[in-house]
């Protein structure tokens, strides 16, 4: 079946079975590396992308369901040579070991940043709970997200009062 998808602002025509998870279409048909296969079960978050601005597990999202909706992948936030603000925060904190989880982490965190409003440390942890990292890079990931949050001025006053 031929479908038209809007990925990172550009339209793409793809020919795939409608039940194909968006993850495989992104990776295999469109050559986008950001979303990763981790579990295919909605348990790890490695495949996280945004659909109409909300984070979803692309491993569980049939491609047919995103026709006519806006899909954003980590490639849409910046490129290796021109990182976006949240990606820059990860680079400044050197928040990766193997990094296999990181594109999903960034997309998950970006949804929190996009939500706006005050964001506490506990909010960040709660929000990131869906995503797994096996290398134990959690502390750096939290620092990177906080750095990006601070840069947007969305930090809560109660946190600022904390030592």
């Amino acid at each position, binding site marked *: 079946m031929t479908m038209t998808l809007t990925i990172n602002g550009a339209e793409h025509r793809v020919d795939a079975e409608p039940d194909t998870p968006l993850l495989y279409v992104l990776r295999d048909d469109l050559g986008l590396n950001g979303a990763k296969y981790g579990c295919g079960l909605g348990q790890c978050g490695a495949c996280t992308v945004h659909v109409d601005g909300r984070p979803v597990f692309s491993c569980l999202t049939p491609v047919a369901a995103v026709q006519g909706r806006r899909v954003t992948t980590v490639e849409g936030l910046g490129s290796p040579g021109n990182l976006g603000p949240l990606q820059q925060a990860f680079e400044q904190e050197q928040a*990766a070991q193997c*990094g296999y989880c990181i594109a999903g982490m960034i997309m998950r965190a970006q949804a929190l940043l996009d939500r706006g409003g005050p964001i506490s440390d506990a909010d960040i942890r709660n929000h990131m709970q869906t*995503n797994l990292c096996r290398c134990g890079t959690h502390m750096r990931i939290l620092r990177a997200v906080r750095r990006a949050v601070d840069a947007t001025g969305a930090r809560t006053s109660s946190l600022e009062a904390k030592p």
Partner: protein
Amino acid sequence: MTRSLDTLSRRSFLSTGLTAGALVVGFSMVPRAFAQLAGGGEGGPGPKVVAPNLPGSLKSAPMLDSWIRIDANGAVTVFTGKVELGQGIKTALIQVAAEELDVPPARVTLVTADTARTPDEGLTAGSHSMQDSGTAILNAAANVRMLLARKAAESWGVAEDAVTTTGDGRLAGPGGRSAPYGEVAAALSLHVEAVPDAPRRDPAQYRTMGRDLPRVDIPAKLAGGAAYIQDMRLPGMLHARVVRGPSVGTRLEPLAIAEVAAMPGVVTVVQDGSFVAIVAEREWTAVKALRRIQTAKAVRSAPPLPNGGVVEALKALPSRDIVIQDGPDTPATPAHTVKARYTRPWLSHGSIGPSCSLALFQDGKLTVWTHSQGTFDVRRVAAQLVGLPEEDVHAIHVEGAGCYGQNGADDVSADAALIARHVPGRPIRLQWMREQEFGWEPLGPGMVTELEASLGPDKRIAAWRHEVWSNPHNNRPVGAGGVLAGGEIPNPFPVPEGKPIPMPEGDGSRNSVPLYDLPNLHVVYHFLKDMPIRVSALRSLGAHLNVFSIESMFDELAKAGGIDPLDLRLAHMVDERGRDVIATVAERFGWRGRPRPDGRRGCGLAFARYKNLGAYCAVAMEVEVERETGRIRVRRAVAAVDCGQAASPDGVRNQVEGGIVQSISWTSREAMSFDAERRTGFDWSAYPILRFKDVPDSVAVHVMDRPGQPFLGTAEAAQGPAAAALANAVADATGVRLRDMPLSPERVRAAVGVI
């Protein structure tokens, strides 16, 4: 990624891989033969030592052009037999090379393990990369800089010591003479053996080493660059999935092969003995075909799995008792004696990305792209498995997700090679599914220790006995018998018998000898060669449980004798650097002024020098135990690590932070579950690991400044100390000693109860 259809043979590399004016005139490989402990003793016998007087891997690859090449334009290429596993080794090795060559790091390109291009340095394992390859590159670079200076001096007619390097890839001499490296290099051959005493740069003048260079691999990982083997797409590539039972030792029946082969988009179903794989044009087709076949019934084809716990399972196995330390004995009058048994269950490596490999068989030659830790072993295994001479197999390392030991990487590469052999001319990309990684990979071995230790009336330790029961941790495949596919083809290869790694590296015995100065010390390794559960190396091997046991016992004795755990350790540590990291962690943590235990909050510390020859690492933790739920909350963790000269201090911090968090996960919640038929931990809900809400509030790592000191392997150093610090803090908080991992909420709650 570009397609490399013709297998790059050594000969074609020699004729085409060199640019005019390049310094390299050939590349040097040495024959492989008998043992040294490259890669920490894991894998087969390492590459043959041909120059025992040289440092690091120069011992087995002494020619400078095996390691370094300088093009006429001054570009530097450095070759390593080690691989990037997410530990940051690429960046660290670039820093090492840049420092000793005295060039900007941006000038250096690093080529990692590739059987056609780099030296064989054995496995990237055992925290050996800086010791083996870092040391080799450091000294090779010093040799090259010396030769460049000598050549410049000769052509300028000045004394050699009048020539200096200026850090920008130029040589400078008296009277304002100056020449770029590329120009001098063009007149020089590096096809010469290294000398052991090439002058090294003064650590006080270091420009690159010891600084936090941003990791070269990170930007691509943040923005969807091609960073992983999973991201390779070769022209004409087909997607494969392997068909096996849900767990090692099971098979599916009946297999709906004809039905699946007829599915649109399925190219073929490869059958070779009991090896079965689906090959399709599209990945999703391969997955759907696999799911159809997997509706079959699983039948156990191997003996039943052991039931009961790790103690029953291991103690039922025949043991070969290896005496590791036997006294000397001196008369002792114990005032307090503590006996305790500590256990660890089987653990999964739990890589976030299931294992993946690509392979192409064309014109009689096989190319395998692999994220295995042993690229050269992948070649040996694939050659044997598909029946090709080794020279017709080219293995290239491409990074995968973190593996932390032998996960499915070697198996999946063998699978891909075998499939490719049946489907010539088309590149095959094979990725295991999540449940396949959990069900098939070798697990980190379950282990048991029993310790008995005494405190004398003088409050010093009077005797110490440590016994450890373990399967071999080193079942790294060095031939086709070591991979799953090797047992499935007709005329299968037998699974090789497990062997222990001799001390001082050890495997189940790793770190079983305390670094402390202890009288009447006895250590025995009950080596269990029969493996009812498929196991192999998991980060730190036996050190995780051995250090957990030793450092728990220190606190048990300290409690029995009413001694502060810090004082008991310092009283028995004579190694100055060991004392230093313990004292440093105590100071940074504020050990003397720590909050006193109140039934919920408590503190613990622990120490080990990895393998008693790698990095020194001490960890202190403050925990809060929710008695109602049994949940352990780590408030803060502080570590001090001495790894000799740190090439990249932030790289060391990153590794140690990660090691602490991972070890907390292993120690507090992980265990592979089984029934008689199969592993029952097949996904992240059945095998949960630490998530964000459970990681410490803070982790701080202090890297000791050791300018110019030899590199000491760091990557695994925190696993044991972090585990023991956690148990010690829980014991301090609650007064209850937990000796069986995992210290899960259920166990903690059952043991401590509600106040």
